[in-house]
């Protein structure tokens, strides 16, 4: 089995693992983490496809590889924004629950701390 096929299958499994975590983990930080696992799987799948495009003395197709670098950087910026949103929510309410019937822990004066 070639490395491209092996890591392509590994990427498919990563996407599945991440998707499961995204659905069942109730904590938003764990959802962000799971989303990053899905992202890594998608990148690796694209990387395996790039590897199959090796030609002209290059180890892989440079166009998808360059897009991957762009993708990894953009994924980091999205993660940073998500984490900042989460921390702000925590600062405001002292809770990060996504449940629709979550107890409202906001007390007068708490958000002035």
């Amino acid at each position, binding site marked *: *089995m070639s*490395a*491209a096929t*092996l*890591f392509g*299958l*590994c*990427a*498919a*499994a*990563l*996407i*599945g*693992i991440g*998707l*499961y*975590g995204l*659905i*069942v*983990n*109730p*904590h938003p*930080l*764990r959802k962000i*983490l*799971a989303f990053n696992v899905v992202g*890594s799987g998608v990148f*690796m*799948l694209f*990387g395996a496809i790039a*590897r*199959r*495009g*090796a*030609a*002209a*003395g*290059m180890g*892989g*197709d*440079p*166009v998808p*590889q*360059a*897009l*991957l*670098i*762009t993708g*990894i*950087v*953009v994924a*980091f910026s999205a993660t*940073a*924004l998500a*984490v*900042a949103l989460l*921390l702000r929510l925590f600062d405001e309410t002292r*809770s*990060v*629950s996504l449940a629709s019937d979550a107890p409202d822990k906001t007390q007068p004066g708490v958000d002035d701390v």
Partner: protein
Amino acid sequence: MSDALNIGLAGLILGLALWSIVAREAFAAVEGFMAFGLLLTLAWVQLHGIDVALTEAAIGGGLTGALLIGAATRLRSTEAAARVEGPGAPTRWLAAGVSVAVTAALAVGVLALPVPAPTLAPDVAAHIAVTGVGNPITAVLLAFRAMDTLLEAIVLLFALIGVWSLAPDRFWGGRPGLRQQADPNGILAYVARVLPPIGVIAGIYIFWVGADHPGGKFQGATLMAAMWLLVMMAGLADAPPISRTWLRILLVAGPLVFIAIGVVGVVTADAFLAYPPGIAKPLILVIEFALMPTLTLILGLMLVGAPQRGPLP
């Protein structure tokens, strides 16, 4: 031999991914994720994507891991409440079923990929001489697909503005993050004095060789940002208030120079972001030099987060 290595590597990657999903503590899960990022780097080397491997090590594992570790530490008190909210067995089984189905569909897709594989490598090889750079990835990033890189730089800037805009009104214009306290004679302060000169040289080197070898501005800028963060964490320097004019100028300088060169291309080479023949390499260098400080600042400041201290000292 190589096959056994790859299979072992893929197994470890999957195991760590699983750990980062099922681990009880968020902190332990993030640690698993960071190790996962480093092993992904090896997978990228096996897939002959050295530039991607460098980016994954620096940003995917490194910066993202540091960001999540910080968040996990602050949110530790919320974990017990979240554990109670976990879905019941039917939802878990349904989620597992959906995940297995998605994986199976993708696996079938991987095994059914067309032969011979479509590739743009010959096109890149045929036209790379025009750009004057030797690394095909850099040629794609800054010449053939320069629009993507421009939009990426703008996305990064917008993400930073988004992070800043989450500051409470009374802290707007203030310094991001909390003032770090560390023992001035401790090992952290020592490392923060000794490592940055070496790290900055390595960052500039990775940036400079990116023209002809694996490397480039994103990887170099991440290393520089890491050195800056180390100095800030050791309490040797403080993050600048976000209202500083020099900071804002540097943050927009990279994208603005990029756009300006793109607009000049409309006049001199008949297309936005096209370079006139013969001076492609100098123009690419100008863009890289303008983007480097912008990227370093954005990546570092995004990790520090929203302003949490007032603009007045």
